[in-house]
């Protein structure tokens, strides 16, 4: 089953959020999902400490030496492996990319994110060349506006597509529910059904966004 790697040498772009949303949605589709938390900030471990959705297993504290054997051991029949990486340019990142069936590069629609994120895209292409096999990769824009598509976002999408880079639609909108998943654990469906959870945002719209994103990723894994 596929290995999905979240990669960007920039921190705070939404790698962990993408990982959580995909893990939750794929688990809801009855897949067995193993999430590898390779980020020293331990965002996914914090999320898991409040409760994991059924079907999701977390492995944490994985370093450069362990990443390749851990991915290989987690990979198996009926299992999806999702790797959340640290937001730095490290060998841990390059090794994880070499094991990926899909590399997702989250990027906020800003010039800085695009510039730093493009390093990850360039690395994927160079690894493809070095290994003599293709590594599917795509950009997802994150923390976008729910109301309007900004001029910067439109321009960035145009530039990425013009450079032959796959851009996942829909983007992930800035939603309070996404960030609050890390405070409550579990998934958006549980959050929506629990009146005790005060998200201060529109969970239903966040869930629709997450499902459409997971569907777009699924299409790329077929």
């Amino acid at each position, binding site marked *: 089953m596929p290995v999905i790697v979240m990669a960007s040498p920039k921190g705070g772009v939404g790698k962990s959020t993408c990982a959580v949303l995909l893990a939750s*949605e794929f688990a809801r*589709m009855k897949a067995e999902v193993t999430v590898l938390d390779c980020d020293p900030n331990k965002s996914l471990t914090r999320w898991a400490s409040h409760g994991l959705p059924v079907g999701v297993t977390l492995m944490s504290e994985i370093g450069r*030496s362990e990443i390749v054997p851990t991915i290989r051991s987690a990979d198996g029949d009926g299992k999806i492996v999702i790797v959340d990486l640290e937001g730095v340019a490290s060998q*841990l990142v*390059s090794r994880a990319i070499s094991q990926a069936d899909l590399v997702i590069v989250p990027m906020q629609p800003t010039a800085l994110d695009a510039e730093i994120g493009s390093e990850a895209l360039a*690395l994927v292409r160079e*690894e493809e060349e*070095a290994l003599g096999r293709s590594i599917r990769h795509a950009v997802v824009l994150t923390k976008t506006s729910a109301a309007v598509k900004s001029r910067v976002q439109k321009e960035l999408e145009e530039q990425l597509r013009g450079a032959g880079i796959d851009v996942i639609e829909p983007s992930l909108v800035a939603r309070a529910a996404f960030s609050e998943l890390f405070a409550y654990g579990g998934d958006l469906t549980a959050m929506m059904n629990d009146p005790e959870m005060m998200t201060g945002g529109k969970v239903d719209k966040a869930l629709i966004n997450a*499902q459409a994103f997971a569907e777009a990723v699924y299409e790329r894994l*077929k």
Partner: protein
Amino acid sequence: MSGSNRLAGLKARPKDTTVEEVRRVDEVGEARGFLDRTPRKKPGRKPSPRTYQLHPKIFPEVGEAIAAEAERLGVTQGQLVEKMWDLYKSSHID
């Protein structure tokens, strides 16, 4: 997305993971600034977890001599080092 397990049909592409391949991946990464950033361990000997004492590094023959003398006197090496420290203090510090 439906609740049925549509994902069961997904397949992973075969990936050889030889030592040579990992080395090539490391080289490609390093050329682009993706370096080994594993935190380095603090150098030096760690304090004893029992006594929190620092263990000085000495030549093996000195260590053996101290151990033999402590045994002859029927004291621990720590007690012998304390006696040595007292002598040192009285001749150099007092």
